[in-house]
């Protein structure tokens, strides 16, 4: 057994001296199919990059702490909380936001259609995150029953309480097998 008595790496740490701070860091992202050459400061989250720099306001900031799911986007096809991802760490990734779901001819994604069909929202603030999360759920393939859908959607809060219809919409898409 190696020596375990090493100094701790956790704990309070002071700010960096301003002189040591980097300028903007180059970053390449493919966002909704479009390759973007960007420059960001390292503390910019993917959510803030999307909204503040790229003016893609579809992705919402709710809690900004990974608790509500309003910021959910698909990165390389997987749903994540964009508020907890530093943009620099996603260099080279493909990002899909709610703006990128419809077909080029404007036809809505089957999940968007299902949310409309089932009246799966009221105020709509959580909806982009719900829809991105639901598409991630379908691709993951681990939910079939309403109970499994509810469990797999627990990262998306809806203050209006549209949960019943959200589950119905997702169940419908799963049943039709229409999501790409």
């Amino acid at each position, binding site marked *: *057994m*190696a020596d*375990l008595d*090493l*100094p*701790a*790496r*956790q*704990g*309070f*740490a*002071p*700010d*960096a*001296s*301003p002189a*040591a*701070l*980097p300028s903007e*860091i180059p970053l390449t992202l493919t966002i909704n199919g479009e390759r973007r050459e960007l420059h960001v*400061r*390292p*503390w910019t*989250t993917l959510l803030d990059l999307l909204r503040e720099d790229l003016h893609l306001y579809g992705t919402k900031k709710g809690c*900004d*702490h*990974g608790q509500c*799911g309003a910021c*959910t986007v698909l990165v390389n096809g*997987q*749903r*994540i*909380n964009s*508020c*907890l*991802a*530093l943009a*620099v*760490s996603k*260099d080279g990734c493909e990002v899909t936001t709610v703006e990128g779901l419809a077909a080029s001819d404007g036809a809505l994604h089957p999940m968007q259609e299902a949310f409309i069909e089932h009246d799966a929202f009221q105020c709509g603030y959580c909806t982009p995150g719900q829809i991105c*999360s639901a598409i*991630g*759920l379908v691709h*993951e393939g*681990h939910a079939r*029953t309403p*109970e*499994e859908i*509810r*469990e*797999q*959607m*627990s*990262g998306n809060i809806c203050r209006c309480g549209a949960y019943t219809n959200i589950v119905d919409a997702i169940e419908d898409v799963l049943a039709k097998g229409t999501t790409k």
Partner: protein
Amino acid sequence: MNRFSYARPGSVADAVREVGSGPATKVLAGGTNLVDLMKYNVERPAHLVDVTRLPGLREIEETGEGGLRIGALVTNSAVAYDPRVQERYPLLSSAILAGATAQLRNAATTGGNLLQRTRCYYFYDAATPCNKREPGTGCPAKTGVNRIHAILGTSEHCIATHPSDMAVAMAALEAVIHVSGLNGEREIPIAEFHRLPGDTPERDTNLGVDEVVTAVTLPAPRFATNYTYLKLRDRLSYAFALVSVAAAFDMEGGTVREARIALGGVAHKPWRVLEAEAMLKGVVPERGAFAMVTERILQGAQGYGGNSFKIELARLAIIRALSQAAAGTPQSQTDKRIQ
């Protein structure tokens, strides 16, 4: 969030050099805990080392000893749904799926899950004293709001819990943490990885300042039939454990060859009592034996007011989990009814 410099090393050796470059350096992997803590000014790194591009840490591989080696950057989702993990270590898969949300599990990594920090309200609030965040300032949790806090292994300086579900299952499975530092590589049994608070609650683990986690290995599977992960919490999904129990038996005929019992949500690290597990060796697993074992596990448990209910909750949870494991009817993480 404070300002910091940023590096994205391309090799473990480069990462170790970056990580060891200064005390105010933090490692970024999935970011689900660190970025959150940075937003609360609880973590204020001067330098951030992004390890997400390190090669060779995203694989789950067979070991020569019949176990599995899980790279430190394998996401919680990828571990939980790996067919080998599901078949041979269903306890681990179940525990991971009991935690967080699909979005968080897709981003959070194996190494990061082990190194996540407590969710103690006072630790998270940079405006309050906290010995873990700022040593020597005190522990308001002891006399304050402490519903989620520890009942075992506490100290006068800290009553925080380790929040991981994954680590509780890994403790029961006797996983080994592989780390790399300036002095080379070493292996740390998970029981020696996390620490009790003692008089240095600022130290969650025995990882050195220059070390990064590279992998977790699981020994050859023995607990794929009689196991359960029972997690009790304030919501049915997406809540940290008030009490959780990873229980597993290696059975021989109708008796226990070996028992493993690890608790989450009750201590500064996954809580195991080897003497209690040994009491079940050679025994027919039934409720009378479980009650005696439970008394031994909870010996010395201490409540602080708001969390005192956890002692009785843990007592009942251990007995129920041992019953589930003995019957081979593990707790479902979807159907939340406790059978």
